[in-house]
């Protein structure tokens, strides 16, 4: 770890590399939940732990491919919605800001096919880093 924050493209690259190199064969990883972010700074300490988890799972012989799904930690998010009107030159002429409250499924919805005994929850309590 060189920096305290990891750039988003490097985060994605690290996970792909871990999936491709830590198993006996290269494995694909499908990363979901980051599609709306073009740029972000990710906590490096946690990036490293996630990279490690990807490597651990990639190393399992009974695993053929991986998924990495990012969902809100607290399943109600207040979002700002930015509606932009753009002219033919590509310049924003008008914007309206609104809010919307979104209810999300929690992690169980993504683990319906997984035996609970095989789920290793390493998350800290709410409010802790």
């Amino acid at each position, binding site marked *: 770890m060189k920096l305290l924050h990891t750039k988003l493209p490097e985060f994605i690259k690290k996970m792909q590399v871990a999936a491709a190199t830590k198993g006996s064969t290269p494995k694909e990883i499908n990363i979901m939940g980051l599609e709306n972010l073009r740029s972000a700074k990710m906590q490096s300490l946690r990036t490293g732990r996630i990279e490690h988890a990807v490597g651990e799972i990639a190393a399992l012989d009974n695993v053929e491919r991986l998924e990495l799904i990012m969902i809100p930690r*607290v*399943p*109600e998010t*207040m979002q700002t919605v930015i509606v932009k009107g753009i002219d033919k030159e590509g310049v924003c002429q008008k914007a309206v800001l609104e809010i919307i*409250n979104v*209810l*999300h*499924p*929690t*992690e*169980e*919805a993504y*683990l*319906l096919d997984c035996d*609970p005994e095989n789920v290793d929850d390493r998350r800290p309590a*709410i409010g802790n880093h």
Partner: protein
Amino acid sequence: MAQLKYRMIPEGMLNGKLIPLNIVLIDYKDVKECGLEPKEAFEAVAKTIDGPAGLNIIDLDAVTTTSDGIVVEGTIIRMAASDRGRINKDFGYLEMIPLNYTDEDVKREPHLKVWKEKYPDRTLYMGPDYKKKIIPVHNVVITGRASNNNSATEMMNIVTMEEILLPILGQLEILRGGKVLLGYTGEVISVGIGMVVAEEYGRIVPKRQYRCGDTAHGSGEYAKTLKKHIPIICAEKPVLAKYIIQALECGLVPGREIGGSPAVLTVAKYLHKDIDFDNITDRAYEELASIGFTKEWMHSEFPLLTPEEIIARADELIPGCEDYEIYDSKDLVQVKYAEC
């Protein structure tokens, strides 16, 4: 091993209406008889259900209020959501809190006069303690696909995105073995549920966000569409009438102390009770007018009926619900047992 009794309406089609997740109601008396804490009771029941479920523990001896501020006997005191037999440890469980309100508090929430006069020895509950819950805005619990919202009176499957309305009186009638309506929420209730009162710990809208006489929806002519096509299971209309009549006979005025919902206004008109027309806001009037409850209707002459007549004719007189039938709740609900 002891057996905890619970009632369940299973996920799936029920007489042509889609139930989006398993609905579980547990009598608090049964929880105590098994020597369980509420959370343990939920866990025991959740283990028996594979799919998504909303689970409520109901104390029939306590009291609460409906969205339009009508005090009723019985309330949900704990709520949970489960999926694949488990309850999310952070977001899957919530407690409603007993409210030891003083006379000053009742002055601020005057619809509670009914509690003070008719049920002084009963514990009042509304929603959870909003200062302590983790999910910031909604009074909701979520586990996986299951969501139990609005302090346990609206349940959703967040993956299929279907929902069902479960107003408090219907849940209480199920536990009491009474009759319920199964149908669609319709336009009248879509508007009616917006006519809230100001409550600090409101089950649906806390922090006294909207005053009596106003609408929490503020959606104009679209208010009638908000829940129109959502399935609903609610109490039969004589039960609703009885509690509305009680509130009116305690001297509470629609539009000022209790919400100006179509059902409340209708009963008030037949009893020739006052309505605070000046306190109802323009946007509330607009929503009511969009479903035919115009100012002309509100100011028109109604025959004076006795409470007994209103209750006897409630199905005919009180608006609400569409495409519904009345059922003996025993015919809709499975009685099941969980080991504990």
